[in-house]
């Protein structure tokens, strides 16, 4: 699917939900102000998904998948939350969280690259394992030390979360798109054996990609905890599904060897706008529909995913599809 189609879907969605939400505008400035706060809110709200989706795009490019992303973010957040709050949090909890994140990601990578476990199986196992560790760390408690840490709240606001997302997507994306590393990752996703014969250290690249996923999960955990201020062992269940749907919707193929970070960005926003929009349209739904409008989100999410992938594989020129197996 072309990028402009994603953008078009996004704009249509924004226009539709703005109309449904019953806002009225009297001047251009009011309209601009509304959209400024709307998008700022949207960006902060979806920062964790955006960050993890960046990593998931790379993982899908290697013909892998990371089902453990949600558990990973949750586990990092849980570990962060068990440190005492205060200024010391920055040089105790944060480095520990970062190290843990890299370890968790690299564990996935090592299972896949060095033990040759299929990615979907390996990360399915670690998904259960990491979620289990969340319960080991937290029990039934819900902890919220984050807002007592000086400066932490900033990470959940437009300044911090927006900056992180911008850094990752603009600098990281640009650096990635120009790098030799990207070509190697794409090649090993397209054909692992050929990549090995071409002299690419396949195992190392895979571990690097999954470790990067860990790093992004750490950033996502920071923005998530800063915005939600509390975390429990069952936080973020189903998060990985949301991420995968967004990435696939953005035009990245699950068979590996191709993908687009810009598409991923739009994919996440399309889902976030829908999510926000349905929440905003709750009152309209109560009056006009025989069911809760929030339940419609599941249906739309599923339909969007199938439609996106179908359009993707049917609107792409043939020559780009060949060699997909």
């Amino acid at each position: 699917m072309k990028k402009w189609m994603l953008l078009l879907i996004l704009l249509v969605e924004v226009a539709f939900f703005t109309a449904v939400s019953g806002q009225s505008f009297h001047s251009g400035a009011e309209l601009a102000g509304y959209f400024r706060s709307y998008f700022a809110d949207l960006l902060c709200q979806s920062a964790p998904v955006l960050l993890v989706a960046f990593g998931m795009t790379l993982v899908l490019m290697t013909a892998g998948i990371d089902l453990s992303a949600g558990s990973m973010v949750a586990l990092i957040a849980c570990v962060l939350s068990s440190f005492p709050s205060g200024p010391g949090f920055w040089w105790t909890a944060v480095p520990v969280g970062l190290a843990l994140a890299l370890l968790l990601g690299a564990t996935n990578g090592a299972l896949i690259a060095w033990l040759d476990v299929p990615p979907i199986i390996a990360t399915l196992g670690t998904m259960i394992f990491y979620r289990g560790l969340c319960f080991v760390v937290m029990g039934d408690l819900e902890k919220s030390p984050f807002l007592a840490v000086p400066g932490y709240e900033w990470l959940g606001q437009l300044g911090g979360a927006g900056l992180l997302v911008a850094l990752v997507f603009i600098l990281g994306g640009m650096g990635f798109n120009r790098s030799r590393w990207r070509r190697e990752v794409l090649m090993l996703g397209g054909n692992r054996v050929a990549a090995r014969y071409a002299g690419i250290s396949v195992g190392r690249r895979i571990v690097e990609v999954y470790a990067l996923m860990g790093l992004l999960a750490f950033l996502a955990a920071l923005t998530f905890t800063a915005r939600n201020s509390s975390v429990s062992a069952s936080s973020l269940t189903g998060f990985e599904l949301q991420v995968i749907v967004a990435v696939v919707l953005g035009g990245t193929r699950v068979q590996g060897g191709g993908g687009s970070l810009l598409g991923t960005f739009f994919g996440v926003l399309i889902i976030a706008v829908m999510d926000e929009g349905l929440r905003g349209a709750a009152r309209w739904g109560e009056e006009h529909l025989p069911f809760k409008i929030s339940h419609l989100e599941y249906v739309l999410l599923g339909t969007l995913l199938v439609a996106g992938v179908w359009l993707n594989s049917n609107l792409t020129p043939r020559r780009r599809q060949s060699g997909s197996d």
Partner: protein
Amino acid sequence: MSHGRLSRFLRQRLLFLAAGNIALLVVIATLMKQGGSFAEVLARCGPNIAPVVLAGLGMTGIICTGAIDLSIASIIVVAGTVFGILVHHHAPPPVCFIACVATAWLLSMANGWLVRALKVPAIIITLAGLALYRGLALIAADVAIPNFGGSLSVPEEVYHTPGKVFAGGMLLLTLAVALVWEWFAKTPRHWLALGSSEEACRLLGLAPGRILQSAFGVGGLFLGLGALIYVTQIQFIEPARMALGFELQVIGAVILGGTNIFGGEGGYAGTVLGALFLYFTAQVMTYAGISPYFQDAIAGAVIIGVIGMDCALHRKEKLLEELA
């Protein structure tokens, strides 16, 4: 056991699981406190694992063809919701039971049909189904039941008979039929053929689409029975929260049982032993008095450990195959 039937890999896995299950049973027997009866543990095992095993049999066939169904938990939710709605409107029990099985079968068939018609990988279609079907179940409950509060209760005992009285028997009977059918019938071998090479299937004159559909069809029947037992074992049907993560348990059992996630290799016996292995591991942890908070972590570590070890052992063979 004829040697052409099962690969060396599958035979090794079955032996490992059988030995592991026996070892786990011995551990359970030694850990049991005075007064607990070992026969009771075995008797309880049937109804407890019936949903996972039955859904696992269906999943085995689907994975053998190289596809996968991630939406089975949501299908169970829809089947359960249909069941709950019918119970709410006082339909006679047999009607409710049949509707429950039929719903699961139809949705599974729909998955197969969508995979064929849209030519989109099964993992994507059923990932979409995972969200979509749960949404449909919630909407159906909202529409069909006035003032639906998120939970449907099924108080009358007669509606619980399949799950609470006949579960063990149903499981054994289905298992026997499935194993005999797998041994003698052609269809399961077609699934394996499709999972090995779609191209070769087509060249042989087999219709890949129809084979895939049959895997989803047979899978739907097993899933329907599993759903019926699952739904009739619980007192409250909550479409939003029910069966969350059930597909992971099932896929875990199937993979542990030696079925290749990419298709072309696998069988029902392995799935049953795999499900038993996971269940007994959980039981050992309960009897050993391990805190429930540790149980998920240990279960995950067991899955990773067994499969990781296994994949590492086969790494050399795979690399050699790559060269050929």
